[in-house]
């Protein structure tokens, strides 16, 4: 389903940590070697010595191919990572609700999101709220955000979603595998409760 902020933060931590470890390894290795360690007492040698250059020149074809492959892999990783930052939970535009001989039937996700938002706001304890249809690879899900009115019970809002909002959305799209995530914000105690 949709990726929560926590999920995004976890993947950021993993990828950035791998990058950090690579940088530490490269810098640490270079530093140790420049100080005469790692079994290379000849620290007076060039960073790119003649032997290495000759090897690269001799196998220029596959070295160039491998380097291009690695560079493109790095670029793809960058694209994947950047996309996750910008679109952590990509909105869905249309949801397929039927696929038969006569053609394909789909539902406008915007209309469903509006209906879901209306159902969410029907809960007594919700001051403001918004529903979105998110997902990847044909598995749509509901991403709901609601502000719980001062004095209201967050669990009651959740029960309302489980008992009314989600079943109605499932019926609308004809999919019982539709799931929902609800992000609740407790209203500022100074705010007036919605009666």
């Amino acid at each position: 389903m949709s990726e929560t902020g926590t999920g995004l933060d976890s993947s950021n931590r993993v990828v950035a940590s791998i990058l950090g470890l690579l940088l530490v390894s490269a810098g640490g290795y270079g530093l140790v070697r420049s100080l005469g360690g790692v079994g290379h007492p000849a620290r007076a040698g060039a960073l790119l010595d003649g032997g290495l250059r000759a090897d690269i020149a001799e196998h220029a074809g596959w070295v160039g191919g491998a380097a291009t492959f690695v560079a493109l892999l790095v670029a793809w990783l960058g694209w994947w990572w950047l996309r996750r930052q910008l679109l952590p939970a990509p909105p869905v535009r249309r949801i397929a609700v039927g696929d038969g001989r006569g053609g394909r039937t789909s539902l406008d996700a915007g209309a469903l999101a509006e209906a879901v938002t209306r159902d969410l706001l029907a809960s007594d304890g919700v001051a403001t709220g918004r529903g979105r249809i998110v997902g990847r690879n044909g598995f749509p899900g509901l991403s709901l955000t609601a502000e719980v009115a001062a004095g209201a019970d967050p669990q009651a809002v959740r029960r309302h979603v489980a008992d009314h909002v989600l079943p109605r959305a499932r019926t609308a799209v004809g999919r019982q595998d539709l799931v929902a995530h609800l992000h609740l914000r407790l209203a500022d105690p100074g705010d007036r409760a919605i009666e």
Partner: protein
Amino acid sequence: MRLANRVLCAGLALALLVGGLVVAAEILLAALRRGPWLVPHDRWQQWATTTTWSDRGARVLFLALLGAGLVLLTVEWWRRRPSSLALAPGGGEVTADLDRRGVERWLGDRVGRVEGLSEARAEVGSRVVRIRADSLDAEVGPVQQRTRDALGRHLEELALARSLRMKVDVRQRRVS
């Protein structure tokens, strides 16, 4: 902090994307016997050929790499407070969480109503919830106990997925 980390990660991701594409393009251009396009790799190669491992320039480069890596690891593993707190299962197939800041304000308000407290602030972490409060009472011990009891009740009311350790710090505020 969380937003800053996301901006940092977006910057790193963009650097990887652009860097990877530029390097791939430079390799292709070199294979076609064309000169450098954006990266002066011929000069870099010359520098790497004439610079030894123990040269000052090389050491500065290694230190910079090491420093950047350590900074990145520190930023990523620095313990941050969660942006949201998961609610215990029980809402059918609906997963739910509560915004941490809202919970802090709510707890501060509720606990602040305890008799004997003049003000209370709540800080919620991934494992601990801490209440810092002021009391005008001469004896803070009973107030501290009442505050702890109230905090326990209100946490139970929230029904969080993970139980939080409670730390209550009630200070006596002197009125001059």
